[in-house]
């Protein structure tokens, strides 16, 4: 197998076929808790993306120097250090967003997807492949966060990119799109059940698309029993 095809496979796996949120169903706690708006989802998505890329690269670099018996504590230490650095950076530059996301930034340490990538991929592959894997896995996760956030925000509040100033400064005020004027709000979409139902629907859409692609329009009519 040539290396280029291998990189394409890593990318496709991360973005679609082995997507952290839609296929591995990992990291559900932040996924469900913070996706009430696009901006919250994007903020946590980027933080997670940075964490998984940095931890993958570091783990891959030291993979020959760590004894297998102690690898898990070492991985956890590396991930925790990366997350601490990101948390401090966020509180320095995006303080408002940091306050909104609150406990979910430090909780990235416990996102099993990150330890999962370190253990399953980075500890066995080259630094370059681990970088690509971290990028594609992180982007795949962040995309789901953003799509779910958009879905819930549009249904729940009738807006998109509300509070964008938390991330983009003064420019953000102009980014907020009001889809429906004087929208009454649909509380269910903002509340936790809305997150579960939304994620369920996204997984269903992904499975339906995969099925359609694999059977290429062969229809099996189902008759009444």
């Amino acid at each position, binding site marked *: 197998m040539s290396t280029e095809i291998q990189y394409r496979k890593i990318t496709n796996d991360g973005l679609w076929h082995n997507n952290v949120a839609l296929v591995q169903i990992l990291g559900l706690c932040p996924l469900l808790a913070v996706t009430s708006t696009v901006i919250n989802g994007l903020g946590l998505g980027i933080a997670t993306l940075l964490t998984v890329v940095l931890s993958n690269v570091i783990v891959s670099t030291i993979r020959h120097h760590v004894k297998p018996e102690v690898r898990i504590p070492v991985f956890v230490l590396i991930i925790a250090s990366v997350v601490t650095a990101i948390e401090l950076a966020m509180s320095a530059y995006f303080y408002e967003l940091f306050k909104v996301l609150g406990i979910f930034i430090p909780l990235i340490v416990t996102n099993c997807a990150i330890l999962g990538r370190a253990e399953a991929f980075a500890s066995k592959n080259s630094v370059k492949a681990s970088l690509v894997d971290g990028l594609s896995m992180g982007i795949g996760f962040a995309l789901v966060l953003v799509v779910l956030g958009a879905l819930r925000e549009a249904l729940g509040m009738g807006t998109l990119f509300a509070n964008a100033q938390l991330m983009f400064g003064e420019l953000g005020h102009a980014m907020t799109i009001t889809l429906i004027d004087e929208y009454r709000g*649909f*509380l269910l979409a903002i509340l936790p059940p809305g997150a579960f*139902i939304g994620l369920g629907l996204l997984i*269903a859409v992904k499975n339906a698309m995969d099925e359609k692609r694999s059977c290429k329009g062969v229809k099996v009519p189902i008759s*009444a029993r």
Partner: protein
Amino acid sequence: MTIAPSSSPFAHGTSSVTKVMLRVIYALLPAIAACVWFFGWGVIVNILIAVTTALLCEALILKLRQRPIMPYLLDGSALLTAVLLAVALPPLSPWWLTVLGVGFAIIIAKHLYGGLGYNPFNPAMVGYVVLLISFPREMSSWLSPQILSDYSLNFAATITATLNGQLPNELQLDALTMATPLDTLKSQLRLDHSISETVSSHPIFGLLGGKGWEWINGALLLGGLWLIYKRVITWHIPAAVIGTVAAIAALFYLYDAETYASPLIHTFSGATIMGAFFIATDPVTASATLRGRLLYGAGIGLLTYIIRTWGGYPDGFAFAVLLMNMVAPTIDHYYQPRVFGHKRK
């Protein structure tokens, strides 16, 4: 000449899904009539909107799932879900409330789980809970029975009010609505008014429960007893639900009558009777074994009382039913009847 071999049973019951569903709807008719008498045409308009939405959603989903449309559409299950939800909604509630609740019930609670017979949760109650937690203001503004006798709304005015929120003669909706009996009790208790004080001073309370409500609940009881007589449902679930609610209410009432409402109020207000006979007995989502049904009904009664008394909502029946739906398969697992010829474990 060949004779087609046939095996038992030779006598077939004529029961079918359609027949069961229609009988439940017939049993609801006296209560719907009482509802019209006390609260005006609102409930009829609700039912019309709900049934239309339910049939459209059902047909749409059946088409998407490539199932035959007509047999499933005419089995009456979507119709019953719509009627049950429409009766539970406040009269004069805006049209989109009904459409949203019924749509959610049919599409998400029923068909995404696999359609009739596969849904783990009662669709009508899922629709109700979705509306209750999303639109608490609309869901708690019930008409008051005696104000409506002063300003009678005819059928056309009711339809207008439902569709665009406009009431004739510049009436405000807030002037017609008031809290339900259980809601009144709850808010008055928070203001340190005792139960007996509230019941005697508020005009909403009648002889047994809320004024008007006691008649509607009486009609529901009548319909429910007819269902048991016709063997559409067994007595286990309704008896367990009402018995548990009344027993626990009596216990706390004897302990402190000023902070805990009497068993009569608990039985004849809110959704106790409607739920016990019409909601909890749903053959798909309820427990299927006889002893299991007693436990299932008792669980619903207990949870209803707990949510009503110490929870945030005035009535907890819908939540109680959904919670017990979740454990119904486990209950059935432990209460499976002994197979004939096998030993007890």
